[in-house]
Each structure stands twice: as structure tokens, then as C-alpha cells.
């Protein structure tokens, strides 16, 4: 396979040496594309549901954490998270509103892998709530990976704030 690739490369290269057309137009699409692309750009997309509403089941001001933090490359709930999530579970069982569990990662590592990591963290929270008796149907895990950091700097303290799941 290696050999054929090499052959193909040589063939193409040789071709490119000899396929020197005397007259040629440099990509007609070049500028026409740009015009049309601009018109697409002006059609900016709206955001739907980005604000995520938690139908009043949890009052963050009521002293219960709604953000739970994780170690690097880990999706294990901390003791603090577990005690807060028990309260969330009680409230969700008595008032089963739909909830978004938004999982996040810090900026280290690759973006799509971090999407998977954010989801794994959200899933850990979801699983814990379900073990407490919450109906899984009201819990939706949505990962944002490293795309929506809570803190912007590239240091340990920011990274720790960004490895999180938010209940919304």
C-alpha cells in the first residue's frame, strides 16, 4: 500500500510537471464563492434554548450548589457534590421538572475528546441522581467540552473552575 501511494505521488508530481496548460483560469470560483459566502455569513444563526431554564426546582440562592467540580481527566463526584446532589434529587423527585446537566472540561487536551469528557461528567451526575430515584427522563446531559469556560486564564485555578457540571 505504501508503495502504491509513493507511486501515485510520483505520478501526480510528474503529471504536474507536464500538465502545464498554456492558458488557464485560476479558480473561477475564487471570488464568486467569497460573495456568496458573505451572504451566508450575514444570516447569523439564532440561539435556541441556550439560557436553559430550570423550572424553579432549585434555588441556587437557597444554598445548594448547582456547579460540581472534577479532577483532570476524571468524572468522579466529590463528597461536596454528592451531598448537594442528594438535595437536588429530593427536590427533583417531589417536583420532576426537566433539567439540563451541562458538562465541561478544561482547555487541556483536544476539543472533541473534551466533549466526551464533559459528557462523561454530566453522565456521572445523571447516574447519581437516578440512583437516588430521580426519573432519568427529566435529566438531559449536554456537553460543552472546553467551549464554554467559566474562567478564561490558562492556569491551574482556572482549569479547576472549568472542569465542572452545571445543573440548569
Amino acid at each position, binding site marked *: 500500500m505504501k508503495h502504491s501511494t509513493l507511486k501515485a505521488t510520483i505520478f501526480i508530481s510528474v503529471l504536474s510537471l507536464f500538465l502545464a496548460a498554456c492558458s488557464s483560469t485560476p479558480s473561477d470560483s475564487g471570488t464568486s464563492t467569497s460573495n456568496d459566502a458573505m451572504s451566508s455569513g450575514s444570516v447569523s444563526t439564532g440561539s435556541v*434554548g441556550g439560557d436553559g431554564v430550570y423550572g424553579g426546582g432549585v434555588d441556587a440562592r437557597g444554598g445548594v450548589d448547582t456547579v460540581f467540580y472534577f479532577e483532570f481527566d476524571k468524572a468522579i463526584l466529590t463528597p461536596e457534590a454528592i451531598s448537594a446532589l442528594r438535595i437536588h434529587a429530593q427536590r427533583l423527585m417531589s417536583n420532576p421538572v426537566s433539567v439540563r446537566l451541562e458538562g465541561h472540561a478544561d482547555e487541556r487536551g483536544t*476539543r472533541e*475528546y473534551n466533549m466526551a469528557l464533559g459528557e462523561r461528567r454530566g453522565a456521572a451526575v445523571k447516574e447519581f441522581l437516578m440512583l437516588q430515584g430521580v426519573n432519568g427522563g427529566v435529566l438531559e446531559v449536554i456537553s460543552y467540552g472546553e467551549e464554554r469556560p467559566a474562567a478564561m486564564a490558562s492556569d491551574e485555578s482556572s482549569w479547576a473552575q472549568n472542569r465542572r457540571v452545571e445543573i440548569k
Partner: protein
Amino acid sequence: MFNSRSLIALIVTLILALVLANRANAELNIEITSGADNPTQIAIAPIQFGANKSADISKIIADDLRRSGLFEAMPRANMLSHPAVAKDVYYRDWRIVGIEYLVVGKALRQPDGRTQITFSLLEILGERTLFTHKVQGTDSESRDVAHYISDKVFETITGIQGAFSTRLAYVTATPEQGAMVYRLMISDADGARERLMLKSKEPIMSPNWSPDGKELIYVSFETGRPAIFRQRLVGAKREQLTNFRGLNGAPSWSPDSRSLALVLSKDGNPEIYLYSLAARSFSRLTRHFGIDTEPNWTPDGEAIVFTSDRGGSPQIYELTIGSGKIQRLTFKGSYNARPRLAADGRTLVMVHRDGGAFHIASQDLVTGDLRILTTTRLDESPTVAPNGAMLLYATKVGNRGVLAAVSIDAGVKYLLPSRQGDVREPAWSPFLR
């Protein structure tokens, strides 16, 4: 050691043997493979372009060639003369200042308003014209014309197809009035002529080109969840392809254009699926409780490489589509992710953690040699030029995301022009003609 550099050397040597055997000074061509340490000396004489002949495209050509790392372009101020055609060239004037190749070009205004450039590549030592070509374009296509000339010059001297007429796609994130605004952009390969493809208040991720370079696929959160979209560059027709609960991510267009490899977690955890564009059907390719993500096709379309933590840490695996056979490719280091294969099918580039730093590394799939190409600490999203000579990646300067380039032999490095906000996730287009 048989690295990519020696592969290029071999290719160039073989081409020389095959087609340049009857030419003198073949050594000049071989020297190119020694890389940025000993770049080929070239001069691009001024080439006027456009209605008032005010636009000079020679600087664009010189910058193209310089960025490849294989050339050093003579500054305009050092030129003793500014010939536009071969017959006006005094070879001795160029030879005594060490120039090996000279590009000259003359513009002719066409009745339809286009400008036609007749350009020649001259070999100074042999005192001969290697080629004369014509190319034409409208005033607004001056950069296309310049990149076309760069491609022809680069191809003739190096034997490697030029990638100066290609494009980049990337994502920017800019804080505006307290909220982040995400944009999907495209530009020329040199970063010029930036164009907006999509603007959103929700994240945009993972742009990937169609094999014909006419469409992009990407992830947008505009519905409140990640979803995969496809969008034509011309006409901007857009379509949402996936709408599953959980991850809808990491789309990669197959070389035969018919399907996408992508990631869904609808069955419980991230798995790689094949999506048939014609049938609009999904078939699952991976079955493991670990994370499987970031698929990328082999050039022959028979396999994908992907990231999986099935072995305990993120590593690169290869899955042969026909047989379903999975093989681990990376073994050095505790974090290897987001694989991208060069067009030779042999050079794998990825994000590699070395201590606490994330670098771009390349691995020769035949010898297994791993080579770290970058020195900054938060490098990600490598994308290889279609000719395999350079790769682009995202890194951080201060707290800002920027795009940087490195040659596949790590000899050449440069930053793309800085822009507003955070720039990330470059995707190099295929050849566009």
C-alpha cells in the same frame, strides 16, 4: 531513519531520475530537500496586475514561497533590474548575487477586462527558461493569480504539488458585549481574504472539508445542543444532519464523498458511526464502553484512525471498515489524541502530551518513530496541507488562541496573521482544482 523528510527527498530524487535526467544541475533540486537550513535562492521580479497596474503580485508569490521554508526570496531593493520577460534577463546579474531561480511576468489587459499574465521560470545557472505559462483573472482575482503562479513555480522546482491555492477553515471566539460570539471563517491558505461563513452566540466546533472543497461540515450548538451541519460555500445552503441526544460531533468526510464518520453518544457513550449522505442512515462502527472519538479517514477510504481511552488513556487506534479490525497505533506517552493523516497515508499527526505540555507530534506509521514538532504548551487541532509539506495547528500566545504552522520536518515555523479574539480549529482544504 526513514522520516517524512527523507520520504520527500526520495520522491524528489525519483522525480529527478524520471523526468529531469536530461537536465543539468539536478543537484540544485536535491539541495531543496535539505530544508530550511539551506533554502533555494529565488527572485520574483515585479509583476504588475490589474486595471491601473498598481497591484504588484510578486510580493504575494515571494511570501508564498518563503512560507514553504524551502525558499529564500530576494528583497526587491536588492534587484539590479526588473525584467518582465525572459529576453530582458541578464543572467550574470542574478548569478553573481547567488540567485538560482528567477520568476518574471508581464501583464496584458484583455478586451473583457481581465488581465493575462505571461510568466516564466528561469534557471539562472543553466541560463534557460524552464517554462512559460499564461494565467488570467479579473482585478479582484489578483491573489488567485499570484497563488497559481506560486504553485507552478513550487511544483516545477520541488516536484511537490503546490498548496498555495488552497483554503483554511477555522473558528473564532470573540467576547462582544459581555457574551462570546463564535464565527466559522474561511480564508486563503496564507490567511488573506477572510470570509464569514456562520456567526452564532453558541459554540461552533470541528469544521471539516468535503473532498471537493465546496462544502464544510461542522458542529454548531445553535439549537441548544451540539448538532452536525453541512453548508455549501457557494450559495450558503445549509442543512442540519444530526439531532440526537448527547454528543453529535467530530464529523469527518470520507474520501469518496459518500459518507461521514462522526461521533454520537445516543447509545450511552461516545461511539463512532458511519453516516451515509445518500441514504441518511447511520451504522455504528465502534462498540466499547470507553470514549471513542475524533475519527479521520485514511486516504484510501478503507479505514479510520480515531482517539479512544479503551486502554486506560487516550491513544490513537485504526479501524478497518470492511473487517472491523481495530489496531492500536500509538504507544509513546499517556495522551495521544485527534489523529490526522497526511495524504501519503503514512504520516500521522496528533496532539501528544509530554509531561504537562500538549504538543503536536508526528508518527511514521511504518517505522513507528514519534517526533514532537512544536514547543509551545497548549497546542491542538493539527491539520495537514494536502501536499503534506506543512501542518497548521492552534496554540496560545499569552491567553489568546492563534494559528501556527510548522513544516512536517519541524524546520519551518510561522504564526498566521493575528486576528480579533480567539482563533482555533484550523482545517486545511483539499486541493481545489
